[in-house]
Protein backbone atom coordinates (compact mmCIF):
# COMPACT_ATOMS: atom_id res chain seq x y z
CA UNK A 1 0.00 0.00 0.00
CA UNK A 2 2.82 2.39 0.96
CA UNK A 3 4.72 1.88 -2.28
CA UNK A 4 1.55 1.97 -4.40
CA UNK A 5 0.69 5.39 -2.95
CA UNK A 6 4.26 6.60 -3.50
CA UNK A 7 4.05 5.40 -7.13
CA UNK A 8 0.80 7.30 -7.69
CA UNK A 9 2.29 10.44 -6.10
CA UNK A 10 5.38 10.28 -8.33
CA UNK A 11 3.46 9.71 -11.58
CA UNK A 12 0.77 12.32 -10.89
CA UNK A 13 3.28 14.93 -9.67
CA UNK A 14 5.53 14.57 -12.71
CA UNK A 15 2.62 14.82 -15.16
CA UNK A 16 1.14 17.75 -13.21
CA UNK A 17 4.35 19.76 -12.96
CA UNK A 18 5.33 19.38 -16.59
CA UNK A 19 1.81 20.40 -17.71
CA UNK A 20 1.95 23.33 -15.27
CA UNK A 21 5.28 24.52 -16.68
CA UNK A 22 3.97 24.24 -20.26
CA UNK A 23 0.73 26.03 -19.38
CA UNK A 24 2.39 28.89 -17.48
CA UNK A 25 5.04 29.35 -20.14
CA UNK A 26 2.35 29.58 -22.78
CA UNK A 27 0.61 32.21 -20.64
CA UNK A 28 3.83 34.26 -20.33
CA UNK A 29 5.47 36.10 -17.47
CA UNK A 30 3.18 37.41 -14.75
CA UNK A 31 4.51 40.93 -14.19
CA UNK A 32 1.50 42.83 -12.79
CA UNK A 33 0.73 41.98 -9.14
CA UNK A 34 -2.24 44.31 -8.60
CA UNK A 35 -5.27 42.30 -7.40
CA UNK A 36 -7.42 42.94 -10.48
CA UNK A 37 -4.58 42.02 -12.83
CA UNK A 38 -3.92 38.82 -10.85
CA UNK A 39 -7.66 38.08 -11.09
CA UNK A 40 -7.53 38.54 -14.87
CA UNK A 41 -4.52 36.24 -15.09
CA UNK A 42 -6.35 33.65 -12.95
CA UNK A 43 -9.47 33.76 -15.13
CA UNK A 44 -7.36 33.37 -18.29
CA UNK A 45 -5.51 30.43 -16.72
CA UNK A 46 -8.78 28.81 -15.56
CA UNK A 47 -9.75 28.47 -19.25
CA UNK A 48 -6.38 27.00 -20.25
CA UNK A 49 -6.92 23.22 -20.51
CA UNK A 50 -3.26 22.45 -19.91
CA UNK A 51 -3.40 24.32 -16.60
CA UNK A 52 -6.70 22.58 -15.72
CA UNK A 53 -5.17 19.15 -16.47
CA UNK A 54 -2.14 20.03 -14.33
CA UNK A 55 -4.41 20.95 -11.40
CA UNK A 56 -6.31 17.63 -11.78
CA UNK A 57 -3.00 15.71 -11.72
CA UNK A 58 -1.86 17.69 -8.66
CA UNK A 59 -5.20 16.83 -7.00
CA UNK A 60 -4.63 13.10 -7.55
CA UNK A 61 -1.12 13.51 -6.17
CA UNK A 62 -2.52 15.37 -3.14
CA UNK A 63 -5.03 12.68 -2.16
CA UNK A 64 -2.41 9.95 -2.54
CA UNK A 65 -0.11 12.10 -0.38
CA UNK A 66 -2.59 12.52 2.49
CA UNK A 67 -3.23 8.76 2.30
CA UNK A 68 0.51 8.16 2.71
CA UNK A 69 0.84 10.84 5.39
CA UNK A 70 -1.88 9.23 7.55
CA UNK A 71 0.34 6.23 8.40
CA UNK A 72 3.93 7.42 7.82
CA UNK A 73 6.16 10.10 9.38
CA UNK A 74 6.21 13.56 7.81
CA UNK A 75 10.00 13.20 7.67
CA UNK A 76 9.58 10.04 5.57
CA UNK A 77 6.67 11.01 3.29
CA UNK A 78 8.07 14.36 2.14
CA UNK A 79 11.67 13.34 1.26
CA UNK A 80 10.68 10.06 -0.37
CA UNK A 81 8.54 11.93 -2.89
CA UNK A 82 11.68 13.87 -3.92
CA UNK A 83 12.41 11.08 -6.38
CA UNK A 84 10.13 13.07 -8.71
CA UNK A 85 13.13 15.40 -9.27
CA UNK A 86 14.90 12.65 -11.16
CA UNK A 87 11.96 12.08 -13.50
CA UNK A 88 11.31 15.82 -13.83
CA UNK A 89 14.89 16.48 -14.91
CA UNK A 90 14.44 13.92 -17.69
CA UNK A 91 11.09 15.47 -18.65
CA UNK A 92 12.53 19.02 -18.48
CA UNK A 93 15.07 18.01 -21.10
CA UNK A 94 12.94 15.93 -23.45
CA UNK A 95 9.47 17.48 -23.10
CA UNK A 96 10.17 21.10 -22.11
CA UNK A 97 13.41 21.18 -24.18
CA UNK A 98 15.28 22.94 -21.38
CA UNK A 99 19.05 22.82 -21.54
CA UNK A 100 20.14 20.24 -18.96
CA UNK A 101 23.91 20.27 -18.39
CA UNK A 102 25.92 17.49 -16.77
CA UNK A 103 25.78 19.17 -13.34
CA UNK A 104 22.01 18.81 -13.36
CA UNK A 105 22.32 15.11 -14.21
CA UNK A 106 24.80 14.60 -11.35
CA UNK A 107 22.35 16.45 -9.08
CA UNK A 108 19.50 14.15 -10.10
CA UNK A 109 21.70 11.15 -9.25
CA UNK A 110 22.55 12.62 -5.81
CA UNK A 111 18.83 13.24 -5.14
CA UNK A 112 18.14 9.62 -6.00
CA UNK A 113 20.80 8.37 -3.58
CA UNK A 114 19.33 10.60 -0.84
CA UNK A 115 15.84 9.21 -1.44
CA UNK A 116 17.21 5.65 -1.22
CA UNK A 117 18.81 6.46 2.17
CA UNK A 118 15.59 8.01 3.50
CA UNK A 119 13.45 5.08 2.38
CA UNK A 120 15.70 2.24 3.61
Amino acid at each position, binding site marked *: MKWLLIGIIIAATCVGEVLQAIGMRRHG*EIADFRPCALGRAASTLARNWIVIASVVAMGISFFAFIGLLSFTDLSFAVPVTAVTYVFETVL*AKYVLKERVNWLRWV*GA*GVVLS*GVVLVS*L
Partner: protein
Amino acid sequence: MTSESARLRSKTWACSAVVVLANVFGDFSLKRGMPAELPTPLSYITVLFRPWVALGVTLLVLWLLSRMTLLSWADLSYVLPVTSISYVLVAFAGRWWLNEQITPQRWVGILLIVAGVALVGGGSAPQTFGPQSGERS
Protein backbone atom coordinates in the same frame (compact mmCIF):
# COMPACT_ATOMS: atom_id res chain seq x y z
CA MET B 1 18.95 46.38 -18.21
CA THR B 2 20.62 46.27 -14.77
CA SER B 3 17.51 47.53 -12.99
CA GLU B 4 15.45 45.08 -15.02
CA SER B 5 17.54 42.12 -13.84
CA ALA B 6 17.51 43.48 -10.26
CA ARG B 7 13.73 43.69 -10.42
CA LEU B 8 13.53 40.11 -11.69
CA ARG B 9 15.92 38.93 -8.98
CA SER B 10 14.03 40.47 -6.05
CA LYS B 11 10.69 39.36 -7.47
CA THR B 12 12.08 35.83 -7.84
CA TRP B 13 13.38 35.72 -4.24
CA ALA B 14 10.17 37.10 -2.72
CA CYS B 15 8.07 34.61 -4.64
CA SER B 16 10.44 31.74 -3.76
CA ALA B 17 10.16 32.57 -0.04
CA VAL B 18 6.35 32.36 -0.22
CA VAL B 19 6.62 29.04 -2.10
CA VAL B 20 8.94 27.52 0.55
CA LEU B 21 7.06 28.76 3.64
CA ALA B 22 3.65 27.75 2.28
CA ASN B 23 5.02 24.28 1.44
CA VAL B 24 6.66 23.64 4.84
CA PHE B 25 3.79 24.90 7.00
CA GLY B 26 1.23 23.30 4.67
CA ASP B 27 2.82 19.84 4.99
CA PHE B 28 3.25 20.28 8.75
CA SER B 29 -0.40 21.30 9.25
CA LEU B 30 -1.61 18.34 7.17
CA LYS B 31 0.34 15.86 9.27
CA ARG B 32 -0.67 17.63 12.49
CA GLY B 33 -4.36 17.13 11.72
CA MET B 34 -4.17 13.73 10.02
CA PRO B 35 -5.70 10.70 11.82
CA ALA B 36 -3.67 7.49 12.08
CA GLU B 37 -5.53 5.90 9.17
CA LEU B 38 -7.95 6.74 6.36
CA PRO B 39 -9.98 3.50 6.13
CA THR B 40 -12.64 4.45 3.54
CA PRO B 41 -12.66 6.63 0.41
CA LEU B 42 -15.18 8.89 2.18
CA SER B 43 -12.69 9.47 5.00
CA TYR B 44 -10.35 11.10 2.46
CA ILE B 45 -13.04 13.79 2.03
CA THR B 46 -14.24 14.16 5.64
CA VAL B 47 -10.66 14.56 6.86
CA LEU B 48 -10.46 17.80 4.85
CA PHE B 49 -12.86 19.43 7.34
CA ARG B 50 -10.53 19.00 10.30
CA PRO B 51 -9.13 22.45 11.19
CA TRP B 52 -5.42 21.56 10.86
CA VAL B 53 -6.00 19.69 7.61
CA ALA B 54 -8.09 22.58 6.24
CA LEU B 55 -5.27 25.00 7.15
CA GLY B 56 -2.78 22.68 5.47
CA VAL B 57 -4.86 22.52 2.30
CA THR B 58 -5.19 26.32 2.26
CA LEU B 59 -1.41 26.72 2.59
CA LEU B 60 -0.79 24.13 -0.14
CA VAL B 61 -3.19 25.99 -2.45
CA LEU B 62 -1.12 29.12 -1.73
CA TRP B 63 1.99 27.02 -2.47
CA LEU B 64 0.54 25.87 -5.81
CA LEU B 65 -0.49 29.40 -6.86
CA SER B 66 2.80 31.04 -5.81
CA ARG B 67 4.73 28.27 -7.57
CA MET B 68 2.71 28.72 -10.78
CA THR B 69 3.39 32.45 -10.59
CA LEU B 70 7.12 31.79 -10.19
CA LEU B 71 7.09 29.32 -13.08
CA SER B 72 5.57 31.93 -15.37
CA TRP B 73 9.03 33.53 -15.67
CA ALA B 74 11.49 31.07 -14.13
CA ASP B 75 12.64 27.68 -15.42
CA LEU B 76 11.39 24.56 -13.67
CA SER B 77 15.04 23.55 -13.39
CA TYR B 78 15.74 26.79 -11.46
CA VAL B 79 12.64 26.63 -9.24
CA LEU B 80 13.39 23.05 -8.12
CA PRO B 81 16.77 23.69 -6.40
CA VAL B 82 15.81 27.02 -4.86
CA THR B 83 12.73 25.55 -3.21
CA SER B 84 14.54 22.35 -2.12
CA ILE B 85 15.43 23.91 1.26
CA SER B 86 11.85 22.89 2.12
CA TYR B 87 13.08 19.30 2.66
CA VAL B 88 15.35 20.34 5.53
CA LEU B 89 12.73 22.65 7.04
CA VAL B 90 10.06 19.93 6.85
CA ALA B 91 12.43 17.50 8.61
CA PHE B 92 13.01 20.04 11.40
CA ALA B 93 9.25 20.60 11.68
CA GLY B 94 8.76 16.84 12.07
CA ARG B 95 11.56 16.58 14.62
CA TRP B 96 10.61 19.60 16.78
CA TRP B 97 6.85 19.85 16.53
CA LEU B 98 5.75 16.28 15.79
CA ASN B 99 8.39 14.45 17.87
CA GLU B 100 9.42 12.27 14.96
CA GLN B 101 12.57 10.21 15.40
CA ILE B 102 14.93 10.93 12.51
CA THR B 103 17.81 8.48 12.19
CA PRO B 104 21.29 9.77 11.18
CA GLN B 105 20.84 7.82 7.95
CA ARG B 106 17.65 9.74 7.17
CA TRP B 107 19.34 13.11 7.90
CA VAL B 108 22.13 12.17 5.48
CA GLY B 109 19.48 11.21 2.91
CA ILE B 110 17.67 14.55 3.34
CA LEU B 111 20.95 16.50 3.00
CA LEU B 112 21.85 14.50 -0.12
CA ILE B 113 18.44 15.40 -1.59
CA VAL B 114 19.05 19.11 -0.96
CA ALA B 115 22.61 18.90 -2.32
CA GLY B 116 21.38 17.03 -5.37
CA VAL B 117 18.57 19.48 -6.02
CA ALA B 118 21.06 22.37 -5.69
CA LEU B 119 23.24 20.70 -8.31
CA VAL B 120 20.27 20.21 -10.62
CA GLY B 121 20.01 24.01 -10.82
CA GLY B 122 23.72 24.73 -10.30
CA GLY B 123 24.90 27.91 -11.92
CA SER B 124 21.74 28.36 -13.94
CA ALA B 125 20.14 31.74 -14.60
CA PRO B 126 16.61 32.42 -13.30
CA GLN B 127 15.40 31.81 -16.82
CA THR B 128 16.79 30.37 -20.02
CA PHE B 129 13.97 31.45 -22.28
CA GLY B 130 12.95 34.95 -23.33
CA PRO B 131 10.00 36.28 -21.31
CA GLN B 132 8.39 38.28 -24.11
CA SER B 133 8.95 36.21 -27.21
CA GLY B 134 9.14 32.76 -25.63
CA GLU B 135 12.23 32.18 -27.76
CA ARG B 136 15.09 30.09 -26.45
CA SER B 137 18.23 32.09 -25.84
